[in-house]
Structure formats: C-alpha cells, structure tokens
C-alpha cells in the first residue's frame, strides 16, 4: 500500500465531512481535471474556529489531508489556522507519497480560501 497507517486511518474514520449551514467562511479549491476538489466550511466565533467541515472529491490523500486539516484548525484562532502549513498536515499524517504531496497543498489553500472568504464577508 502506498499510504501510511495514519493516512488510511484518517481516510477511513474521517468525521468532519459535510456542510455547515450558514458557514462564516467557505473555501473552494482544486478542480476535477486534476482529480481533486476540496470545499472547506468554517464556523467562526470571536476569531475562533468553532467548527470546520470539508467536502472532498479526490483520492485517499485528498480526503485524509482534508480530514486532518479540519482536526488541526478546530478550536484554533483564525491567525493560528493560517499558520497551519501543508508541511504540518503532512507530518501529522506521517508523510505522503511524493506524487501525492499536491493534495496537502490543497488543504492549506482550502483553509486560506475559507478564511479569506470569512474576512471578506466581515469587511463588507
């Protein structure tokens, strides 16, 4: 098998999938052409991410990184969540096969996009 135990675990047991109604920030990244699409929903209260969910069309790595990333930002302050790098997500999963590294980038981008959306909404 290509993947670490942690990746498979996260992939199989993922919980934070689905939608958040009236989310405070939504990030949509990736495209079907490349085989991975990730949508991130955030509920943010007082600058703190109180809930985070994802919807992902993609491979094991895409789903596992989405799932792990949700775990890593829930309960964190927005600024802290912005610091969650693809490297951190990958490490938390005990690594990814080289050809799958782009999936972890997607998770980072997804979070950033969702937070940006949140900040945009707030400023308008």
């Amino acid at each position, binding site marked *: 098998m290509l993947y670490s135990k942690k990746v498979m675990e996260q*992939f199989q047991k*993922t919980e934070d*999938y*689905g939608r958040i109604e009236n989310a405070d920030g939504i990030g949509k990244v990736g495209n*079907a052409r490349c085989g991975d699409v990730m949508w991130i929903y955030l509920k943010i209260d007082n600058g703190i991410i109180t809930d985070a969910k994802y919807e992902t*069309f*993609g491979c094991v790595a895409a789903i596992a990184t989405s799932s792990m990333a949700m775990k890593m930002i829930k309960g964190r302050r927005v600024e802290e969540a912005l610091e969650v790098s693809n490297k951190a997500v990958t490490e938390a999963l005990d690594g990814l096969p080289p050809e799958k590294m782009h999936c972890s980038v997607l998770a980072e981008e997804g979070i950033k996009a969702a937070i940006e959306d949140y900040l945009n909404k707030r400023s308008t």
Partner: protein
Amino acid sequence: MKTQYYLDYNATTPVDPRVVERMIPFFSERFHNPSSFYHQAGEVMEELDAARVELARLAGANADELFFCGNGTESDNLAIFGTMLQDKKGHLITSAIEHAAVLNSCRQLQKDGYDLTILPVDGHGFVDPDDLRKAMRKDTRLVSIMWANNEIGSIQPVAELARIAHEHGALFHSDAVQAMGKIPVDVQSADVDFLSLSAHKMYGPKGLGLLFKRRGLHLRPLVFGGGHEKGLRPGTENTAAIVGAGEAARLVSTHMREETERVRLWRDDLQTRIEEKIPDILINGDREPRLPNTLNISIRHIEGESILALLETHGLALSSGSACSSKSLDPSHVLLALGRSHEDAHGSLRISLGRFTRREDLDHLMTHLPSTAERLRMISPFWQNRES
C-alpha cells in the same frame, strides 16, 4: 489484511498451476541452452517448438509466424517500429484508446519525424471504419488498432479495419493482449499482418510477449545479437516461460468457451445488480461486442482511488483505469476518448473477471460497493450539490 477477492484479471492473471507445473523442470533440470549441441538442448528446443505450435494454433497462425519476445509492450513496439523504421518517413494510424505500449510508440515515431493520425472512438469505445478510410494516405504504412480494450473491453471491427488498411496498401497490426484467452482471436479470418500477445494475461508467466508476423513480411528488429527467433529477437530463449505459455495456450483452447460463458453471465448479472443498487452510475463501454469479463463503471461524483482504497479494506482487489496508470494522476485517456468528463473519468472502476473467479467474489463486491459509494458521496461536494 489479505485481499481474497481478486477482480482484476485484466491487470494480470495468476499463472495457472498446471502451467507452473510444466515450467518447473525447465529451471534446474532441463535448464540447457536450447542452442547448444547436446541432445538435452535439442530436446528443450523441441519443447519450444511444441509450445510455438500450440500458441500459433490458438491464434490461427502457422508456427513459423510466431515469435517470442520480452512482453506485450515489446511485441507492440516490434510491430510498429519494425515496420516504420524501414523507411525514414511515412504515415501511421492508431486509435485514441490504445494501450500506452502502442500509443507511446506511435508518439515517439511522431517525434522522430513520422506522421501520425490518432483516430477517435465513439461514446462506446468503437473506431468507425469510415474514419479509418478517410485517414488513409498514399504513404500510410501501418495501421495499429487494438483487438479489445483493456479498460472498457470494447472489441474493434478488426477484420473490417484490416481490409481497409490493405485496400490502401498499408499493413495492419492489432494488439490482442487483452483479447486472447477471452474471445476467439484468429489472424486468418481477420487477415491481420501482425498481432501482439502477452502470456501473463492468459494464465501464463509474466515477461513473455508473442508476436505474430505474417509469412513473407519483414520487420526490422529492435535488438541485434545472435540468431535466435530468426534474428527478429535475439538472446537465449526464455525456455521455462515459453513452455509455460504453450501450456497456457492449451488450457485456453480447452476451457475458453465454457469460462467465457460463465464469466459473461456473472458479469452481466453484476452489472444489473450495480445498476439497481447504486444510483447515478455510468457504464463505460456498454455496447456489444465487448469482452465478456470486463465491466467498467463511473460512480459519479466520487473518485476512483478512494473507491479502491475502501474496497481494499474489505479484501477486494480492483483497478481504476489500467494497472499502469493507477498511480498516475491523469484520468484514463480511454474514458476521456469516450467523451467522459474529467470528473467521471477520475471516478471509474474496472471490474474484470477470470478463470478462478467465484460467485462469492462478486457477492462480496456487492456487499461493499454500494456502502462504499454512499460513504464517499457523503464526503463529495458534487454529490451533495446534486441533491440540493
């Protein structure tokens, strides 16, 4: 965790135990170099000849028209480069759904200065003979179109395509790697000039390809050396594998009809059950003629590798697309050629049955495939959208 449910016969077949049994003496006892002088060597050579006869018969060819090489890929290359390299330029034609062994050979020739036409297929994976007719040119030297597709199983009108090629003075090659052992393949009635086979797709060993070359036709070898295989593919013969392939051919002639019927029934039944249990799927290559053992579906809105991974946790071994592209990031070029969207192409699943498939393999798949699809759809942004 052991995968006990193998549904990936198009990727490779287990070597039939009867084949292994025939091979074993040729490793440590009858190990002699068949080109040597002493009688054991000559006797090994006779075994190779017998295997050649058996394999030739299976393909409707003469034994002296059959050549052994390293694998199916090399056989494809030998026919394609071997024809085209006899001239410094020229035109060749292939189809959009060929195996990489054919497509990449043709593309390399294009880079090297030859002209290439890649014919499209229709939504069911068939080449239109009229398209071939229109593509033929005065300088077309070779048409290479596969007998049956490895991903979706569509069977081409080979005899008709070969006729068109010949009418225009070109030679015709067909990659029958996936066809042989699953459906009748006959070089005479189809009138092909070159045919490529691979032993490991028909219950023989890996690392043995076969090339049929019609009598009187010349190919430039890919490799030069001693005089083995009449100089077309030199190097000490892979004796054990050749004897094994001969036995594999014998088993195919004996069992194919019965196997095929069983497998076709089960495959059709499986398709019905999947269509009943899982909404919103696409059958890729849903029209006859198609390989009786192959079923390719796109479970819309979810991705292939994730499906494979979840099924694997239940001991199910399948492929998404072809084996050699499972690890690559590109969607199947075959499904894209059918006109599938990238999303659907990414979500394909190939189920391929074979000689040792049991009903319970299929039942086991049906126990787990619907829930797998459902779970992944719960995660997918596209599925949810569809509902809302």
